[in-house]
């Protein structure tokens, strides 16, 4: 007869010395485990609850400005630094880690309307309502010279005066041109005191401007006549324009998909467009209850943050119709500018109450060094929570956010109004000849026309 019986020798299955790791043996056979789905569900529920327990997104506020903060700029070469400009002409460079001002750049007589840093991190360009554009030298060597403690103010490298007040400025990603927005769009070179080129299409002020991260010669602007215009520097004439029903306050290009941009609109929504096909929005992001003032993409291109007039900051998925997260504080008033940090972990908001606030991008994230086992556990909990997040108990916990009362009431009111409008539309359609009334998709509804 041939016979074999299971016999396990202890030394094969236990460790040799006490300094060795314990041995772990795996058998993935599902018959060894019972009720796997129920166990996963319980873990998802616990993960959702733990997430909420550890959700502390607010890190700190950076105090120092004396007037409301209108614009911010991040230096692509430095993670810890951010520039901010306020309504009294004060520009400051902040160190995010210590939440203190490193350096001040006084000089503007009126409000600072736009800030931008060149891609190599050496020049800060600021423009204001005093019709000037100032260039500041912010390279490392230069800043290291000045005394850290005495909050030394720096002198501008160059001041260019022009004919009209400026509303926004943006620097080219891979060149040495920057563009300002005001009565018309001007293209400047660092060394010239006059714009190299001017674009003018339409009769109204341009209020925001952004260069494309992938194609350095393309820029998008938005104007007071409710339009979004795309310009190509090589063609020296405007390329396309789309007119919407309400004006766009800010535009941000997706750094990972440079043909897409998202526009923060006055009608509380954000519209994502494909720049090649402007007749229809790719996605409409709805959740704010008042005008969206500023928008910035995460460097991963998967999320963007918006700041709105309704005193909240929201984070959206790049293709999601509703926000993933909302941040608000009693002390934070109208949010005028937001920036996503370059390591995709933090969000900085500048608001009406003269403070810059630092928030975590993922509210329950553990900051600091995360051990590999901890990281794996976090990833597992995230995955199991996402698998069961449509079930009612888990969904209730995951979706729950505390909203400030005015926002909550305003959202309810908007919902009732939209519902009423929709019902009326449905009834009109039901009572009219079939096919005579066509409902326009939401993505197209807010666009009036596209112009070449």
């Amino acid at each position: 007869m041939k016979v074999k019986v299971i016999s396990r020798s202890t030394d094969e299955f236990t460790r040799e010395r006490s300094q060795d790791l314990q041995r772990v043996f795996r058998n993935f056979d599902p018959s060894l485990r019972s009720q796997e789905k129920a166990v996963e569900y319980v873990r998802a529920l616990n993960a959702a609850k733990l997430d909420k327990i550890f959700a502390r997104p607010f890190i700190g506020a950076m105090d120092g400005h004396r007037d409301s903060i209108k614009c911010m700029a991040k230096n692509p070469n430095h993670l810890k630094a951010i520039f901010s400009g306020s309504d009294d002409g004060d520009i400051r460079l902040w160190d995010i880690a210590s939440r203190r001002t490193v350096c001040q750049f006084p000089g503007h007589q009126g409000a600072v309307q736009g800030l931008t840093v060149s891609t190599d991190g050496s020049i800060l360009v600021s423009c204001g309502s005093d019709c000037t554009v100032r260039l500041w030298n912010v390279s490392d060597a230069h800043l290291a010279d000045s005394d850290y403690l005495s909050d030394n103010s720096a002198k501008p490298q160059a001041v260019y005066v022009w004919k009209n007040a400026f509303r926004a400025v943006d620097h080219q990603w891979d060149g040495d041109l920057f563009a300002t927005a005001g009565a018309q769009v001007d293209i400047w070179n660092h060394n010239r005191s006059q714009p190299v080129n001017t674009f003018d299409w339409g009769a109204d002020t341009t209020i925001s401007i952004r260069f494309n991260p992938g194609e350095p010669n393309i820029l998008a602007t938005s104007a007071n006549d409710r339009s979004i215009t795309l310009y190509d520097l090589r063609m020296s004439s405007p390329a396309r324009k789309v007119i919407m029903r309400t004006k766009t306050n800010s535009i941000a290009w997706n750094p990972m998909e440079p043909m897409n941009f998202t526009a923060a609109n006055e009608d509380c929504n954000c519209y994502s467009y494909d720049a090649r096909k402007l007749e229809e929005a790719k996605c409409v992001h709805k959740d704010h209850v008042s005008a969206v003032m500023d928008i910035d993409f995460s460097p991963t291109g998967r999320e963007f943050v918006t700041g709105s007039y309704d005193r909240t900051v929201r984070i959206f998925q790049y293709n999601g119709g509703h926000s993933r997260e909302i941040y608000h504080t009693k002390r934070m008033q109208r949010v005028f500018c937001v920036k996503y940090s370059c390591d995709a972990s933090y969000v900085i908001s500048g608001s009406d109450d003269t403070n810059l606030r630092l928030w975590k991008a993922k509210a329950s994230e553990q900051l600091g060094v995360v051990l590999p086992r901890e990281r794996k556990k976090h990833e597992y909990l995230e995955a199991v929570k996402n698998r069961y997040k449509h079930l009612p108990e888990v969904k209730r916990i995951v979706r729950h956010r505390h909203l400030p009362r005015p926002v909550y009431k305003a959202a309810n009111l908007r919902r009732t109004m939209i519902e009423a409008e929709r019902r009326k539309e449905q009834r009109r359609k039901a009572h009219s000849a079939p096919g005579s009334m066509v409902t326009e998709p939401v993505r197209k509804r807010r666009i009036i026309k596209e112009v070449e």
Partner: protein
Amino acid sequence: MGAKKENSDNEMDEKVKKYLRGEAANLEGLKDKKLKGQLAVREDLYGKSAKTAAKIEKWLLPSEGGYLEAEGIEKTWRMKQESIAREVDILSSRNQYDIVLPELGPYTLDFTSNGRYMAAAGRKGHLAIVDMKTLNLIKEIQVRETVRDVAYLHNELFFAAAQKKYPYIYNRDGTELHCLKEHGAVLRLQFLKNHFLLASINKFGQLRYQDVTMGEMIGNIRTGLGRTDVMQVNPYNGVVALGHSSGTVTMWKPTSAVPLVKMLSHPGPVSSLAFHPNGHLMATSGRENKIKIWDLRKFEVIQTLPCHAKTLNFSQKGLLAAGTGSFIQILADFSGSQNYSSYMTHSMAKGYQVGKLLFRPYEDVLGIGHSMGWSSILIPGSGEPNFDSWVANPFETSKQRREKEVHSLLDKLPPETIMLDPTKVGTVRAPQKKEKPTKKDIEAEMEAAIETAKDTEFKKKTKGRNKPSKRATKRREMIGRAKRPFLEQRTQEHETSRKKQKTNPETEMPKSLQRFVRQKAT
């Protein structure tokens, strides 16, 4: 060469199927392209992980299972334990022994889930805990009372003994921790591992579930079917099955007072019950010397075996042990098609009455509790050779045991998750179709409303106000009011049916008026 390759391919396919855990989702009917894309990516990932798991099973598992093969004219069921013990190594042959304790009554046993520790209880009050690796007696106590059953809780530190009046929970050191008075005189105890529930059936046929973490009594069910001491837990879904003296097998969950399933399995009392670890097979035996193997998905008998069985037990690999008197028979299905046939037999000394058969997890050992003590015999091929350290580790250190306890407490399932089909968690319930009331129902409702209206008592008015004509008009008014909603409904229905009829004008309108006919939107 080609045939071999085909065979191995088939084998891998089977394995992959096992790891896929069910059918892939049907994405054809989805119109939402984004969702379809996301789900397609996920299905792809599942396929890849199933393939990797199948490859790991083929190449990376450390141990191989046991087997017993007959050569020539030998038959496996004629092989004696002594001859097997001679062929295997010393460590395994130590697993074959008989412990004789004649004065302390028939013994029953229980193993921890990793097969390392055993608790033995003699009817006359002897409780013993043995470490099976070293065959060390850890602790033995004499409780001086009848002990009917013993069950380990979640690890080797705690066990419950069903004593004369109440069940007690003891520590590994023999200290009595709890006296569970609410259970009463318990005949059988079973522990549901995932839910941390101690289930007991007592003399009056009351089934009780107690949560051993917080001590809460979750369920107290009066089965109403009399005294029974046949109770088993289905490890696949956590359902408790009882076998009754009327021949019915009932299955229970803690949250309902009615059994989930009631099936008539034997003409006489059910003498024992066993569940296959995959949850689809159940073996029952009755007094008529037949063992029936049931498929629990369809609740049908797959096989009937002519075999005496007073106790039954399935092993991890699906071998069925049946014991009566002093004779034990092991049945196995070799082809994998649930066709059980005799594999091995073992007869003990005459006078030893087999009380309980229990396979030891992760070992090829069968533990026998009998009237003269307990024994252990070797059954090659019965245990799972490869254990998973996160599920059950026979070589657990105390630190690992503590960690496992905490993790399993965090993953404790609520009692509502006990259901016949455990894969239903997380699925979507089919929408309930609201049935329209039939014409008869509506008429019956109307009649009922009219009757109640007729029966209303009117206030007795005096001083010339209580004229009979006025009373009659009032009554008519009440009946009319009761009838009104039904009549309105009827007229509405007539109107809608008329409108529907009207929208077929092509047949009715003359040709000259055809251009005024409303065109349906294409």
